[in-house]
Structure formats: C-alpha cells, structure tokens
C-alpha cells in the first residue's frame, strides 16, 4: 500500500487529507510542521509527501529543501498544498524541490489524480 506523509499545521486540513487519501486506498502518516515531518521521515518511509507551506517552526520551503538533502528522499515526490495564489511562492516551492502542487480547497479526486501523476 502506498504510504503518504501529510505535513500541515492545521488539524482540519490533516483530517481532510486523511479522509480523502484513506478512501482512495492509501496509507497515511501525519506531521504537524516541517520539523515534525523530518522526525517522522526519520522513523518511517513515505512514498509521497504532501506538505503545506505556511507552518510554524519549519515552513514548507525549508522542509522540502531538507527532505531533498536526504539521500533517502531525493527521489520522493513532494506535492505542495497551498492556497497561495502568488506565482513567486509556487516557484519558491519548486526551487526548493517540490514535484508538484495541489490547490486548496481540493477535491478528493484531484488530490488522488495529482498523486497518481507524480507517483508510481
């Protein structure tokens, strides 16, 4: 079963993601911010990572950069989840190493579709 790590400081958003992903047959693990996300990745592997941008402690950009520096996760697809409409933000996420993005609010089908596009 494909394992997906969701990183978001909003419990609501984590719950929404979990609901959609579990229904689509994924296994979901969660983290509440970038620092926690790295901790979780240290303990369990993820096939795809979905991360928010605005988070305390370590934001999405920093998190993505840190993940890409880890040899184990250089090839792991990372989707950025954001409401940001600022293209500069999208580019920053890409520069950090994001594979793709999902716009909030998302439809469950589109979320799953995006995962399919970047993952095996």
């Amino acid at each position: 079963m494909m394992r997906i790590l969701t990183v978001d400081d909003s419990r609501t958003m984590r719950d929404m993601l979990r609901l959609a992903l579990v229904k689509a047959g994924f296994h979901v693990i969660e983290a509440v911010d970038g620092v926690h996300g790295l901790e979780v990745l240290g303990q369990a592997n993820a096939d795809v990572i979905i991360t928010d941008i605005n988070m305390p402690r370590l934001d999405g950009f920093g998190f993505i950069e840190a993940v890409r520096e880890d040899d184990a996760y250089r090839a792991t697809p990372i989707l950025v989840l954001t409401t940001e409409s600022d293209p500069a933000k999208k580019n920053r996420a890409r520069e950090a190493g994001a594979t793709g993005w999902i716009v909030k609010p998302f439809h469950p089908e589109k979320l799953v579709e995006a995962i399919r596009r970047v993952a095996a």
Partner: protein
Amino acid sequence: MDELEEIKATFFQECDELLGDLEAGLLQMEAGEGDSETVNAVFRAVHSVKGGAGAFGLDALVRYAHVFETLLDGVRSGSIEAAPELVRVLLRAADVLADEVQAARTNGRADEHETASMVAELEAWIAGEPLGAEPVVAPAAAKPAAPPAAADEDDFGFKPMAVLIPDVAPIDEAPAKAGWTVTFKPAASLYAKANEAGRLLRELGRLGPVEVELDDADLPPLDALKPEEAYLSWTVRLEPEVDEQAIRDAFEFVDGDCELTISREDGANEETDLAALLASLSAAPAPGPAPLEVEIAPLAPAPVAVAPVESAPIRAAAPAPAAGRAAVDHAPPQATIRVDPERIDRLIDLVGELVINQAMLAQRVVQHGFAPSSDIAMGLDELEQLTRGIQDSVMAIRAQPVKSVFQRMPRLAREVASQIGKQVRLVMEGEGTEVDKTVIERLSDPITHMLRNAIDHGLETPSERIAAGKPPEGVVRLAALHRGGRIVIEVEDDGRGINRQRVRQIAIDKGLLAADATLTDEEVDNLIFLPGFSTANAVSDISGRGVGMDVVRRSVQALGGRISISSRPGEGSTFTLSLPLTLAVLDGMVVDVAGHTLVVPLTSIIESLRPKPEDVRPLGPTGAVLAVRDSYVPLVDVGSVLGFRKSSVAPSEGVVLLVEHEDGGRAALVADVIQGQRQVVIKSLEANYRQVEGIAAATILGDGRVALILDVDAVVAMRRREPRAPEPTLHAAE
C-alpha cells in the same frame, strides 16, 4: 458524510485555537514585543481559518479572511508597517473574524454592516490609504486588494483533465487529421524535483495510443557520463483527437524544467521498443513495496552498456527502499490523540464507582474483623493506592489549560474599555495552567465579572490617571496559578483602589454594618461581597448586568471556591479567586450530626476540638461563642441550622470543627462524632434536583448510601441570618 461533519467540528475547534493565537499574537505586537515569527503566526492563523473555510465552502468566511490575510501578508512581507494604529485595526478585524467564524458555525450570519465596514477599512490599509488616518505605508506598499479567493484556483490550480479512453482509440487507418508531435527534453532540474520522464510519458499514454521515440544522441561516452546530468530526449506522437490542453497539463509540474514543443504534423508510424515497454508499463501498475524500481526501469536506455543506476540520476539517488525502512512499518507516534469527551467522562464516572466500591469493600473487611495486618486488609490497601493512581491519571486526561477561558478576555476588555471611554492593556499570565474540565466550565463567569469590575470600577479614566501622575492606559493583569492544591485566579488592576470610606458608608446606610463597627481594611474591602451591597450609583451597566458581587461569591462558593479582594488606595486592587482543581473528588471529614452523616471539606477545616464546657460562652438570645486560645469564635450548630434538630446540643458533648470561611473569618461547627477522613467522589445534586442551601453536593459512602457534603460558608452565613428570622421553618414558605 458523517466524517466530513466530524472534520467540520474539528475545524471550528481549531478556529477557536487559531483565533486565540491570532489575538495573542496581535496583543504581543501591540505591546511592541512581536518579532517576525509573531507576524508569521498571526498570518498563519488567518490563513488556516481561510483554508479550512474553503474546504467546507464557507464562502462568507473565506471572503472576509482573504481580505484580512492580504493585509497581513503585506505586514509580513514588510511592505506595510505594523504601526500601532494598524495593530488596533487588526485587533478589531480579529474580533470580526471571530464573529464570522461564529456565524459560520451556527449557519447564521454575522453583522453584515460591521463586516462590510471592516472590509473597507482593511482594504484601505491594503491600498495604503487607511481611513481617517495618515498613511503609514512603505513606498512599495501600494498593492491593490487581491482578487477574491476564487482566483486562487485559476492561477495554478488544476484544469479539467481529459478522460482516459485508450480502448476507444481507433486501431487501424492513418488519421485523416495530422496527429500531435511532442518533443520533450528533460533538464537535470526536472529529476532534482523528483519528476520523472517515464511518468510523464505514462501520462501521455493515458491520453490515447502513443508512439515514443528515444533520442540518446546526446549521451556521452561512459567516462564522460555525469550522474546528475540529463542526456535523453523523447519524441512522442499522439492521436489528433487528443486535446492540446490535456497534453500541456501532463507537463504542468515540469514547466521550466524541460524543453517542450507540441506541434501538429504528420507522424511516421514507427514502432519502437520503448513504446511497447511503456504500454506494458502503464497497463500494469507496479505492485509491491518498491514501486520506484519498476517505474524507473524504462528510463534505462537500452543501447548503453551501463547499469541503469548510473544513467538516470534519479536512480542513483534512490536506494532500495524495501529492506531497511520497510522494517519500520507502523505510523510514527503521534503527539496527541483525540477522544470523544464523553468517553473520558464515562471513564471518570467508572473510576468514581471503583473508588466507592473499594471503600465499601474496605468497610466490610473491617466489619468482618480482619486485622489491618492481615493479607486481605493489606491487599486492599494496595488496591486503594492503585485506585487512587488510576483516578489521578484519569483526571489528568481531562485536565485542560485555562487558555480556553482566558482567550475570550482580551476582547471583553477591549469592548468594556471602549464602552466607558477607558484605556486598558490586559496582561495575561499562566494560561497554560491546567484544571479539570468541570472547573474550566465554571471559571468563565466569575472571571468575566472580576474583569469587568476591574475595568469599570478599578481603573480611572485617562484624564483622572494623568492627573494622578499615571500613564493614561491602565493595566489589568489576569493570572492563573496552582497554589496549595487549588487553582488561583488573580485579577489585578493599577487603578484607584477601593474607596473604603465610601464602601463603609454604603454598608452602614444599607444596614449591613453597625455604624460603630471596627473593621480592618481588608474586611472593609470585602464588604462589597455582602448580599445587598451594591454600589448603586457607581454600578454602571457594564459590571452591573443586574448581578452583584454577592452573587458571584455565592456561585464561587457553591463550587467550593473562595473569592476575596484586597486593595491599595491609589495603586489598585486585586481580586483573588481560588477553586479546587477538580469538582470530581474532594478530601473530606466524615461526621455525624443528629443521626445524619455529613462530609465537611477538609480544605476549610483548621482543626478539630473537644471543647470544655467553660470554653463556651452564650452571646445574645440564641448565639454562643467558643473561646479558642485568645479569641472567640462563633459557634454554629450544624444540626439545628440545617433543621435536623430543633434545639442546639451543648458543644462540649460533641466535637467542634474549627473552620475558616471565605472572608478569612473563623467559625466553630458543632457535630456529634467524627467518623474519619476520606476522599469522596462529588455527585451533583443539581443534575437531578437543585441546589440546596447549606449543602455543596452529595457523595456516596462505603455503605452505598448518599451522604451530603456541607457548604461551610453557606452554613455559617445561615447561622448569621438566624436572629433576624427567629422561627425559621424547615421549608421556606413559597
């Protein structure tokens, strides 16, 4: 849709927290203590509210939050300066956001006028022209109000995807219309973002039959091959029916990371090995724990005699994921779990039953004559300790920080202050202090009252303050702390202090105090809690609300709490409220009074005495006092006050509990026999009946019978009243 409703409930819970964070952050900024992380946190709070609201289609909330967020984004990026007047606007904007959240929660509507005028104000700041204020905007700031939230999707959201219809595609003849030719050359940066050429080709494969041609002309000799570089490019031919946008969408994520051309032209029908490979690949999704390996395989260019690992940079970066990490196959420990509060309440009830049962068992063991050193008695002792341990742990689960109550107070303070033209800064401390849920729910009213009182009565007007040599802005401190197994709430103002002369005069005028009474300063201060004491000409509709401090004190006492005030003329006053940490259990002294078993809360007992007849002195027609060392303490015969017996017994025939009541005074409660000390589980009388004067609550003793828990302060107060109503009947006339 139950799950969605549940998440929605979570969202509103989270909103409460976010609104609290938002306000706390803004207050920090107002106090000049905010740094960039504070501004970020403030932004995030509004951003998260908006994000969640969008997920549930709460459009009004999204629209308002969007404007608010846009302004905060300007502050965050430094294009708008966080001047004090802006922070004050943001605080009010936060209040409106709270109203909008509340409206969304109740499916109601917020005050449209208020929202609209707040939006106008926020937009004016965004535009760099704050309403009714000098622009305080950095040059680069003049940023137009962002378009409504819907624009978000357009910018880089998903477009509708073409439907995958491989079976329908024509099998044979050459297309009448020219097909699509897509040439695609990934840059190294594409791989660095974990995108893969293979997956992009697969996406195209979903659009219909494809022919794929690999161009490895750029592939250098083996010794010149750099693992991080990208050398390969592909040409893909698609059916003419395929939508161009669908093709572009397939490359959406890699825009800028590859060279891409999409054109219509005649294609040669050459089969390539790769196309076949690809077809088989997209037909059979990779199973098993290591999908990456299967997926990447087609990337290995066949003619090159190097292991695929070296040729595709991705491959080099990805170690076999299966063995090492797969061992940790469980989700990581999560910081918190969420539990339906009813389940915890049920658990606490059950543990309460366990405590009672354990006590019943212990009592029977004693009745059956087992020695305390017997195995069974010792086993029971251990059981008791375990039971206590379980009880403490379970209670700790339900403990909550007082933050949830505190976070409503800044808004209250702002509103009260602006209503009466005072300036106040609320400082809060100890918001993380934890108490049982049963107490949290009861803290709000008294704190609200004390705070209103502090601002309304305690603080002076700005002009009075300036005249007194104080800054025009008053400071009210709201603090929570643990002390002596209780939670203490302090509300301290730096206002004028209590006008003792006047309080004393009012008490005398209302017949609450003898004109010649000598009272300490503290006793005078606490006169404001007397029933019937209402500083009528000073009570405005702010602190008044038709409720005097006596009512606040009564409700606090009903919870086993105390409230008092101390004052320093010209410097301010401090309200101190203390409550037990839980309303679920209580340590009590079990006594017999006129054949009834009563529990007296241990916290109010100073000591128990066996008075000698000569220590008891009559005072007045029915009263009596007890000489305790150097002072006289009023005697209270609990049995007659509660109507359990007609006439008082001689205190020397029973025992006396010396108790301290809320205003620091002492009284001597007369009982017949002390049975012992015990922790009891508090059971509400109000759940099924109502409050009974003189009784705080009930409990269930070891024999399974209900015993009443004495409300010490009330009983003392009832004794005081007695002389005024000489023949109190057992049940007050209706």
